[in-house]
């Protein structure tokens, strides 16, 4: 069981910028989280001045499934069809460090004790990093909801924040899972059909093309970034082995290999730095891409819903015409048509707003992260340089 307290590191960890909810009356953060066997329990702390809540300051404990439930209810709410619903945070994935730990355990016999402890430390650091990341992603999800004028008032959201018992969200049973899966299939088929629908509005037309294209590219970039980060980590791990062997050699031979001891220390530090570089890169760059990939997916969903509404509207038009021809149920058809039109207009309006703000948000986030990443890289490289320089000096003077 590991638990972390985030307070000091919070600002550093945030890799995606969100409209900070400083000026809203609803402040949410996740100060603490517990990791049990397979589950992570988040402690969600709310500070609010809104009357709709019972207390101004309270905390609850939630699990990942509760987040999923919240997201799904928001998606299913008709009223929010015109809004970009923040993407659900991904499931906490400890698979990779766990697998590595397993492999390490198997290979224990071949390594020296030192090497083993170092590798273990590395893995623990990785585990911790994954943990921090997942907490952060969940936190951002909630914060986006709370800073949005519409979502913050959502009843379900308030329940989520407030209900101090376990939500005991009914896990989706097999049928619902399957239903969800099926719905997704239908949706993607629909998307293809709907992309053929003629778009009247210039703005939306542009957005659609842009988003579709961008989504593909960013997905690709995310995958490549992940691969790059992974190889970087492997590289850092190698330095552990090297430094361990060097230490052994240096221990054996007395003064002749003082230089070896020095370089072994260097290797340790180089390794640490490389590992840091890799993880920073991951945090700033890969996470950025990942997050915006999901966000763009959410934006695409919005477009989809709107296009769906447009299709509905057009269908209702056709139905109205047909009804007029047959002179049957005209009133009903008219009403239906009106509804569809209204819905469509509403969607268009809010959609436009959302997408514009989304664009601005994205650019800001990219900027922030790219700057931070560049600065971190420079910092690490410089400290690496000074370390190496010191060691070279030492060796040459010996």
């Amino acid at each position, binding site marked *: 069981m590991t638990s972390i307290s985030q307070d000091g590191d919070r600002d550093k960890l945030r890799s995606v910028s969100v409209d900070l909810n400083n000026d809203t009356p609803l402040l949410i953060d996740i100060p603490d989280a517990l990791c049990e066997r397979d589950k992570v329990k988040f402690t969600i702390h709310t500070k609010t001045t809104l009357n709709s809540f019972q207390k101004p300051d309270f905390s609850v404990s939630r699990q990942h499934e509760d987040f999923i439930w919240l997201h799904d209810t928001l998606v299913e709410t008709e009223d929010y069809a015109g809004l970009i619903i923040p993407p659900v945070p991904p499931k906490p994935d400890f698979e990779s460090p766990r697998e590595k730990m397993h492999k390490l355990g198997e290979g224990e016999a071949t390594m020296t004790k030192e090497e083993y402890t170092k590798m273990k430390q590395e893995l623990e650091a990785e585990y911790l990093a994954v943990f921090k990341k997942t907490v952060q992603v969940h936190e951002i999800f909630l914060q986006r909801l709370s800073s949005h004028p519409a979502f913050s008032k959502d009843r379900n959201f308030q329940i989520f924040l407030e209900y101090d018992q376990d939500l005991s969200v009914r896990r989706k049973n097999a049928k619902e899972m399957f239903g969800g899966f099926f719905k997704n299939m239908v949706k993607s088929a629909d998307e293809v059909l709907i992309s053929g629908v003629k778009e009247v509005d210039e703005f939306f037309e542009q957005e659609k093309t842009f988003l579709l294209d961008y989504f593909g590219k960013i997905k690709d970039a995310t995958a490549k970034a992940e691969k790059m980060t992974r190889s970087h980590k492997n590289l850092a791990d190698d330095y552990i082995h090297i430094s361990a062997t060097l230490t052994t050699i240096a221990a054996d031979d007395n003064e002749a290999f003082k230089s070896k001891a020095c370089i072994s220390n260097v290797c340790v530090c180089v390794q640490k730095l490389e590992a840091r570089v890799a993880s920073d890169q991951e945090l700033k760059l890969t996470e950025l891409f990942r997050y915006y990939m999901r966000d763009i997916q959410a934006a695409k969903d919005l477009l989809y819903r709107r296009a769906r509404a447009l299709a509905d509207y057009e269908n209702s038009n056709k139905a109205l015409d047909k009804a007029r021809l047959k002179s049957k149920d005209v009133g009903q058809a008219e009403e239906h048509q009106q509804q569809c039109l209204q819905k469509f207009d509403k969607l268009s309006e809010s959609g436009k707003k959302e997408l514009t703000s989304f664009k601005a948000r994205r650019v800001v986030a*990219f900027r922030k992260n790219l700057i931070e990443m560049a600065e971190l890289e420079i910092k690490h490289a410089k400290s690496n340089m000074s370390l190496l320089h010191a060691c070279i000096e030492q060796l040459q003077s010996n």
Partner: protein
Amino acid sequence: MSVSSLRNPPPFLDGEDQEPEYDTRDLDSDDGEDIFTGRSNKPFTPTPPETDPPTDIFSEEGYTVQTPIKHPSLHTNILEPKFNGIQSDEELDLFAEATVELTLTTPNSQGRKEVCPTGPHFSILNAHSSLRMPDTSNKTMEELEEEEHGDTFELNIAVTNPEKMGDGMNAFMTYKVSTQTSLPAFRSKTFSVRRRFSDFLGLYEKLLVKQSLMGCIIPPPPQKSVVGMTKVKVGKEDPSSADFVEKRRAALERELSRSMNCLDQCIRVCVFCQLPRAVNTQALSGSGFLKMINKASDAVNKMTIKMNESDNWFESKLQEVENEEQLLRRLHASFDSLVNHRKELCSSTAMFAKSVAMLGSSEENSALSRALSQLAEVEDKLEQLQQEQAFSDFFIFTELLADYVRLLGAVRGCFEQRVKAWQRWQEAQSTLQKKREAEAKLLWANKPDKLQQAKDDITEWEAKVGQSERDFERISSTLRKEVHRFEKEKCRDFRHHIVKYLESLHRTQHRLVKCWETFLPEAKAIV
């Protein structure tokens, strides 16, 4: 189909292709005879019948190619800018390291004695040298206290320019061996010949003969690799075969330089470098098989006869050597995986760069788009950096480790030779004993005619016993010196390479900083 265009070593491999500097001790175990006296008096080594005594070869003005060494690294060494105050020392050092020192020590030359941590053994050396050679210029080195002042000669060897000759399965690569020397033994200062890999193997074998008598440590050549060569022969111009050729070239160069240590070896190597055609140095491919058989019989031998070790030093040393070999092997493996991972990082960075570029091109915000394409460029540069770093990882360190693993194997071989010499001695003694017994029996049986024979036998065997004992002693003492020398060199070699490696890391980091610094303003300009 010449591959020569590919393979001049890239400049940053700086001193890599430089022969590491070596101090050579005058391994004067030939009882006062040294090579230069030997030149005028008698053949200096048990030479195989075909090779003429040295005088003839050196006067053979067969051909000498007055090619200045086209060795790019030799030049870039001196000129390449370095960082941060490491500069001035480096220049001097690297240049100094470009030379290999052969010294015949004259006693107390220039008031500077050799400081030998191993004490008594080396003082013998000083006494023996009988020939004075003109003093050539002295170089400053970083470890002055180890330098033998006196007579130093320059001898640089470079192996460059691999070229493919022949066709199909009969094809082979030849390498240009260029020598630059100021040894008076050679008529001209610079010359070069072309040799092929089996020539190197043959040279090694000749030197091995020497080793069995003297106990010198001979650096083994790189492995004969059927797969690699076949690829080259078939003519596939793919990067792996080019890599292989490059590796081999570098390895051959290092090996030749290391062979410079023992003076006697040196001459042979020089002969190797000078003759227009490689005479009698072609190792048959069948000999590899023979060697395997020999090795097997050796192993059996080792197990059966236990040497009565009078000197513990040898035993402990052998143990040390074996341990070290193990560790170096492990280190080599880790470095290998480091190089591989770095190469992986290179390729994934390259792919990432491409995908970021595509992302940038489809980005609608122009500033962000610019920034993203800039990011792509940075990542591209990073990839190059990583590529270079992998290169230097490999050539600076990994190959060094591989070489030393092999060298340690050679050292072990020397120890084994010593044991063999002891065995021979013991055998001679026991044969002598038998002869004596036979003589006694004859005496008792009173057969005067055979007695003379027996007496002759005895004298003969006594002489042999004496000889083999002397051999053994000589090998032991040479071995000691050699091991000391080897260790010193190893220490120096490693330190030198470690420093090089750290410097290359340092350089990479520096360039990394530059890359990111160019990126930063672009990122800040995003609006």
